[in-house]
């Protein structure tokens, strides 16, 4: 009655009977998270660090086998950093910046992802998803040991949901039978095929792509000198498939991804001898062990809204993209980053409930950007019509000899942070000459500061605190507004030269209002108490739903 749907890599939260199960009346929790994938666990870290009680229910007892995600972006790592687990990820991960694109046998061009210095985190690391998830669960255990109110229950499968005006009722199945749990707020992070989305009858619309991809994660034996780069082939003449991707992971493991078409016999293709036939054609004599293989197809879809009263959808449950661009887990982490502080403030009575609608506004915007980019990449990699194939091939042919054509080559536009441009929480942009990259809605650009980085000092690590970042500007030592205490961070461009370039631009001083998720809420040239209070009010949703 309780079979696993997938094999575990690590059994990290074995089933234990909880006290809730023996009580007659259901226990009410402030927040219940359904799904203990990367997004669900990150939600627990965010809320747990704020001291908000959170219960995570997952239908398995640990982290799934098989890597799925391997590329984690700078922004994702910055979010993980705030949750206290960014460093081990980078230490274990393989850092890479260089990508090469080939057409048939020859290199068309190469690109460098982060030609800029002065960031704590690299543009991308490659790390097997089970490691990524395990580091977060280790951190969760550490927080629990410090007394953070987090619970994680394995083999707790949500089988039914009932949404009331001011709470949600869940029926949870366990090896000891079912029990009922109530939640003031529910976060549904139950993955792409989200049972909760279905049970609530909510739509998930977009495109399904008629193609399939065979992934093989292999461990090379002996000395192999494939460099730590992303290699992408269009129409490789070695190996087989319409496109192919080679990418390094930790532990001497490499991911090879073959595009094999729609009408394939999956069972047949997944036989080791058939996978080896494809690999051998390309690896020619190199010896390797098979670590994991899988065939995947994908879709680019999203829900219309990510908030439905007391229920929030996050991660793959809310939106799904093709893997080209590594936008799945990376955007899921940004969902959590966005939702955590808002939910924290509302639960503590410090912000109006309307603030929670901005989660949907901002993350739908993020999802649309990801869907647009990943759809375009997919269309380039798998042209839909004869004419689009003609143009695609023309781009590749020209790129070989002409630099101007290379920007058209699209083998995946890799995940970049989301700017919440033009959305309701953004306040004043009153910094004449201020750099566009730090405009309201932008995630704070990193710069080296002293022995560390600015990013170490920005954003909330405990409560959902807003901050004033004062750069060569006079500001009060203590700032309170709208019932919130703000933290003041003072920096001088004299100590940190890149602060000038990334935060001041042509201005000589600046005051930034920073949200708990490290996004810029508003900015000015000098301190103005009233303006700050107004922008803070806007950023915590006091203007939401009003005519603007």
């Amino acid at each position, binding site marked *: 009655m309780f079979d696993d749907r997938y094999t575990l890599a690590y059994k990290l939260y074995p089933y234990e009977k909880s006290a809730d199960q023996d009580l007659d009346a259901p226990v009410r929790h402030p927040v219940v998270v359904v799904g203990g994938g990367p997004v669900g666990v990150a939600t627990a870290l965010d809320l747990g660090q704020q001291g908000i009680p959170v219960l995570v229910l997952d239908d398995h007892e640990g982290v799934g086998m098989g890597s799925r995600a391997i590329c984690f972006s700078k922004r994702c790592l910055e979010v993980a950093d705030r949750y206290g687990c960014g460093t081990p990820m980078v230490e274990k991960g393989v850092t890479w910046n260089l990508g090469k694109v080939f057409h048939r046998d020859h290199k068309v061009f190469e690109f460098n992802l982060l030609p800029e210095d002065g960031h704590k985190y690299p543009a991308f690391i490659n790390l097997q998803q089970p490691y990524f998830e395990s580091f977060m669960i280790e951190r969760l255990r550490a927080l629990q040991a410090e007394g953070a109110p987090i619970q994680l229950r394995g083999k707790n499968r949500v089988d039914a949901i009932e949404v009331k005006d001011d709470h949600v009722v869940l029926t949870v199945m366990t090896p000891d039978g079912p029990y009922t749990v109530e939640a003031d707020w529910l976060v549904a992070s139950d993955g792409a095929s989200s049972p909760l989305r279905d049970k609530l009858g909510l739509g998930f619309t977009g495109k399904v792509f008629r193609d399939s991809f065979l992934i093989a994660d292999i461990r090379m034996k002996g000395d192999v000198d494939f460099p730590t780069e992303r290699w992408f082939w269009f129409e490789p003449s070695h190996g087989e498939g319409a496109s192919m991707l080679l990418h390094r992971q930790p532990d001497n493991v490499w991911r090879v991804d073959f595009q094999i078409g729609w009408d394939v016999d999956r069972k047949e293709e997944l036989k080791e001898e058939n996978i080896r036939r494809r690999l051998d054609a390309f690896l020619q004599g190199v010896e390797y062990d098979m670590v994991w293989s899988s065939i995947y197809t994908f879709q680019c879809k999203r829900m219309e809204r990510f908030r439905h009263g007391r229920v929030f959808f996050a991660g793959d449950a809310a939106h799904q993209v093709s893997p080209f661009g590594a936008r799945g887990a990376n955007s899921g982490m940004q969902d959590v980053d966005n939702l955590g502080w808002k939910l924290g403030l509302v639960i503590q009575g410090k912000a109006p409930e309307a603030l929670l609608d901005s989660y949907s506004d901002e993350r739908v915007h993020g999802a649309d950007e990801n869907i647009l980019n990943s759809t375009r990449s997919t269309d380039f990699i798998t042209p839909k019509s004869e*004419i689009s194939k*003609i*143009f695609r*091939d*023309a*781009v590749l*042919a*020209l790129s070989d000899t*002409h630099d*101007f*054509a290379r920007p*058209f080559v699209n083998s995946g536009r890799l995940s970049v942070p989301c700017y919440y441009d033009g959305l309701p929480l953004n306040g004043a942009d009153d910094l004449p000459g201020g750099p566009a990259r730090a405009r309201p809605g932008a995630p704070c650009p990193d710069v080296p500061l002293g022995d560390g980085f600015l990013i170490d000092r920005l954003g909330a690590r405990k409560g959902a605190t807003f901050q004033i970042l004062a750069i060569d500007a006079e500001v009060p030592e203590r700032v309170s507004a709208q019932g919130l205490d703000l933290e003041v961070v003072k920096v001088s461009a004299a100590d940190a030269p890149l602060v000038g370039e990334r935060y001041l631009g042509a201005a000589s001083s600046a005051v930034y209002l920073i949200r708990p998720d490290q996004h810029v809420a508003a900015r000015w040239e000098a301190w103005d108490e009233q303006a700050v209070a107004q922008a803070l009010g806007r950023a915590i949703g006091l203007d939401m739903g009003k005519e603007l």
Partner: protein
Amino acid sequence: MGHLNTSRNVARADDVYQMLIDAHEGKTKDESDAFNARLILTLMNHIGDEAVIAEALAVAEG
């Protein structure tokens, strides 16, 4: 943002037209299609301006 020049702009129209036709001489249909695509991309890059390209697309739409 510029505008698409839709007034007469090619001095020796017959000669330029002939250059285009000659370029396709001896090509199969597939080769000609590929050639045209490369040509469009090259000209598009020369124009650069998104608004002008959009206007040109509208003209081609007829």
